[in-house]
């Protein structure tokens, strides 16, 4: 489309580097949050990066053999093993003389909170020198939307149908990782790409186990409109449902965004089909839990600030 004479010719300033390591043609659903997470993380990591990807949406999104939509190498590994496959890969690369390449385990919530938690705990306890990124779409989406321990209270999934919706809270993986006393962990959100970028860049320069937990909406599994993905991310932060914070050494906290006008959880829930069945009582319960957790997080930061 040619520019008209009326259009001013000013320089376009991008808030992220223009190089892409994730290319079109991948198999993600329209509006997929997980692809945005990958796109931004790779901009921060650069070309000397290798990923270990266990069974998760990204093992399919990347494309089938003999193709890949990423221009960095990937070790597609067994489901439970993302963290330790990455650790082994890092050790191997170092032993063949490559001490530079950043090795990143890139797993979904299933491969992190549930089946992969043992390997993750082992790696974190040993402080193996890898970055672990969990992109969290809050259910086993790759296999068709079954509940995981990352599924929030109240959500519908195929294994927590409406009459029996998930009645356990979302597992606090960040608290678990903090308890391992790893050098750095952060929560991130695809609706705040510059913050995500900054955190991954920061993690890249730290040695030891680094953990980044990224909120990634899934229109297919959450029953949301594909175009609402970014809006949902912003609401998740503004309602304090998914706060953005960093923890160093498992002992100092820094909350990155404290919403001036904290929005009610209702605003977030009503955009999602997976919460449509909730009544007033359930929504109040969710609001209470979010408020309590937020208050606790503020207290952590107050007592041990970064």
């Amino acid at each position, binding site marked *: 489309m040619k520019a008209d004479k009326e259009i001013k010719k000013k320089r376009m300033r991008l808030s992220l580097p223009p190089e892409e390591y994730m290319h079109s043609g991948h198999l993600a659903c329209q509006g997929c949050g997980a692809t945005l997470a990958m796109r931004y993380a790779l901009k921060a990591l650069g070309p000397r990066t290798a990923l270990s990807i266990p069974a998760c949406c990204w093992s399919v999104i990347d*494309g089938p053999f003999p193709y890949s939509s990423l221009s960095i190498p990937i070790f597609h590994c067994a489901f439970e093993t993302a963290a330790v496959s990455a650790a082994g890969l890092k050790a191997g690369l170092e032993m063949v003389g490559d001490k530079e390449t950043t090795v990143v385990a890139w797993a979904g919530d299933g491969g992190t909170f549930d089946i992969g938690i043992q390997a993750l705990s082992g790696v974190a306890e040993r402080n193996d020198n890898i970055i672990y990124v969990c992109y969290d779409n809050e259910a086993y989406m790759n296999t068709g939307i079954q509940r995981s321990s990352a599924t929030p209270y109240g959500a519908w999934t195929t294994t927590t149908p409406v009459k029996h919706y998930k009645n356990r809270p979302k597992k606090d993986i960040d608290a678990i990782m903090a308890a391992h006393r790893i050098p750095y962990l952060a929560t991130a959100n695809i609706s705040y790409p510059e913050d995500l970028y900054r955190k991954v860049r920061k993690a890249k320069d730290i040695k030891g186990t680094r953990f980044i937990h990224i909120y990634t909406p899934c229109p297919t599994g959450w029953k949301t409109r594909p175009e609402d993905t*970014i809006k949902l991310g912003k609401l998740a932060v503004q309602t304090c449902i998914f706060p953005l914070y960093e923890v160093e050494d498992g002992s100092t906290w820094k909350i990155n965004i404290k919403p001036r006008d904290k929005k009610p959880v209702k605003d977030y829930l009503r955009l999602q089909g997976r919460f449509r069945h909730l009544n007033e009582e359930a929504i109040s319960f969710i609001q209470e839990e979010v408020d309590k957790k937020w208050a606790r997080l503020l207290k952590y930061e107050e007592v041990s600030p970064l």
Partner: protein
Amino acid sequence: MKKQEPTPKIDFKSEKDMPLAPYSLGLMLHNFTGAWRNIRPEINLKECIQCGICWKFCPDTAIYIENEYPVIDYTYCKGCGLCAEECPTKCITMVEEEK
């Protein structure tokens, strides 16, 4: 970010042409995901303020920059509508694809 060029489709005539282990030999740019959509975004460049937000939020890397302005790559755009939704001046409209 430049416009992406399609990469070749890979077919193996014989097992001898296949790698020893299942590893990839090329990118996915042969896969024209533009065929997925039934609505397409159209940018009104007159109203565009060159903020870069549409480019930033595209999950399919289907918006590239040319002459300081965003361009939709219709070969790959899946029609998710995120660019239109997030555009601060609402200069992107989602239009029905003709059959």
